[in-house]
């Protein structure tokens, strides 16, 4: 078997499995798992890491340290359930939509018509990653901004842990294109931005091409309508009707492609990932700020460590109680023995 055959074989897996994989799953229930050993280990790790950070020189850019931090915490966080599984496939559909609008060949009309188009048709997309210490406040501000710009939320996922302060929110927003820039700049104001990527795709050519096809088909339809009115035999009429129905089909298909394209152009897509952090990734690189940053991180790390340790100790209380009882029992037995010996 070669790799292509294996790929083909994977295609033959059960329909139900494929269907399941098109729905986002939530991993509920795991949040209630209570494993003292893991807690103690986690607390110890926190303490060690917290104290280690104190002495470590800061390296790399802000974004990198934020990434490693989120990776490190992710293994100990639990998902609080994904929002809206029904959006799962819709997102993919939207992504692929520009592809559906592009057709091959017959571009000779387009170039001539391109000059007539006054506005460029551009699809804007952006990805934004930010962090905040006031998670709930920032999230509310962000959603308010979307509302204010007349946009809407297409899909969202949230998760993380309130206890450890590592909640995150992943969402894709659709914003009216004329307010896209305004939204991006105001959204950057609500949190500390660690990553921003913008993309624009010029689809003017495709748009004009579609327009040209539709108008040419409509002319044809008009002509056929006239012919149908003049038709003398039933055979002619049936033939013309057949032609007409295939024209209608093409018109409908181009029309739907056009609508998809228009939707993409009029509403730009902004993907935002907001994460809760204890300390904001620094944006300046001067020695003084790095020193103060090291102090802050050291202190928060230390506090985290202490909290973890206390929680760890509390979480093994049955063991401690048992140990205390044992100690008391042993001491009483020893005292009795000493008393006997002295008698």
């Amino acid at each position, binding site marked *: *078997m*070669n*790799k*292509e*055959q*294996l*790929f*083909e*074989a*994977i*295609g*033959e*897996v*059960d*329909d139900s*499995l*494929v*269907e*399941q*994989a*098109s729905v*986002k*799953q939530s*991993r509920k229930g795991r949040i209630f798992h209570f494993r003292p050993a893991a807690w103690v280990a986690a607390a110890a790790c926190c303490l060690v890491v917290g104290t280690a950070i104190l002495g470590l020189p800061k390296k790399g850019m802000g974004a990198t340290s934020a990434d490693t931090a*989120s*990776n490190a915490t*992710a*293994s100990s966080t639990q*998902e609080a359930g*994904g929002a809206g599984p029904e959006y*799962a*496939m819709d997102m*993919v*559909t*939207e*992504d*692929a*939509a*520009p*592809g*559906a609008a*592009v*057709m*091959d060949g017959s571009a000779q009309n387009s170039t001539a018509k391109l000059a007539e188009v006054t506005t460029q048709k551009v699809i804007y997309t952006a990805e934004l990653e930010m962090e905040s210490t006031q998670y709930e406040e920032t999230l509310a501000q962000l959603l308010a901004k979307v509302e204010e710009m007349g946009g809407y939320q297409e899909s969202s*996922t949230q*998760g993380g842990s309130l206890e450890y302060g590592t909640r995150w929110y*992943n969402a894709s927003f659709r914003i009216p294109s004329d307010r896209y820039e305004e939204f991006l700049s105001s959204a950057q104001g609500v949190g500390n931005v660690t990553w921003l990527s913008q993309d624009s795709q010029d689809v003017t050519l495709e748009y004009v091409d579609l327009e040209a096809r539709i108008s040419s088909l409509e002319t044809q339809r008009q002509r056929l309508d006239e012919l149908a009115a003049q038709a003398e035999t039933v055979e002619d009429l049936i033939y013309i009707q057949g032609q007409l129905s*295939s024209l209608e*089909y093409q018109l*409908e*298909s181009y029309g*739907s492609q056009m609508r998809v394209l228009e939707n993409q152009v009029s509403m730009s897509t902004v993907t935002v990932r907001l994460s809760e952090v204890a300390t904001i990734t620094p944006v300046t690189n001067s020695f003084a700020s790095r020193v103060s940053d090291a102090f802050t991180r050291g202190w928060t790390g230390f506090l985290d460590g202490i909290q973890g340790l206390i929680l760890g100790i509390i979480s093994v209380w049955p063991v401690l109680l048992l140990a205390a009882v044992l100690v008391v029992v042993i001491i009483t037995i020893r005292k009795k023995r000493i008393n006997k010996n002295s008698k």
Partner: protein
Amino acid sequence: MDDNAILDLYFARDERGLTGAAAKYGGYCSAIAMNLLGKIQDAEECVNDTWLGSWRAIPPTRPLNLRVYLGRLCRNLALNRLRYSSAQKRGGGIALLEELEECLSGGQTPDQAFDAKETGAAISRFLEGCDPTARTLFLRRYWYGESVADAARFCGVPVGTAKSTLSRTRTKLKEALEKEGVCV
């Protein structure tokens, strides 16, 4: 339009069935084709081939799950295109196949014929025994052809975790296939 209504139109050889299927599953299929082929023109052609293929195959076949059926058809057509283009020159969507090569032992076993359906059933059994997240990641990556980053985002796990989960799943799949006696 309801799937059954679409299928009835297909059986009645009514082209509105095609329009219905294209309207309902066009996005789904273009997403798969786009994932695998990476080029808008190729994906568009591949999706058009999918409608043609379904038109030819559907009577007599009556798929139980039209969405997955069309997706699978589109995926197979995309694979054919990949085969054709990689025969000419390497590039485009091959990374995914290179990853799958890890599941193969490399030895040639010409006496055992390859059967996609049988191997597919073995893979299904293997996936049913997997952790749900690992299963979804595997199918997002190797069925839908998504990039690791997209698959990770879909499952809400970090990219690093997704990569290592996928790698472990591949290793386990190799063992499972060997155990099942499927030639790998």
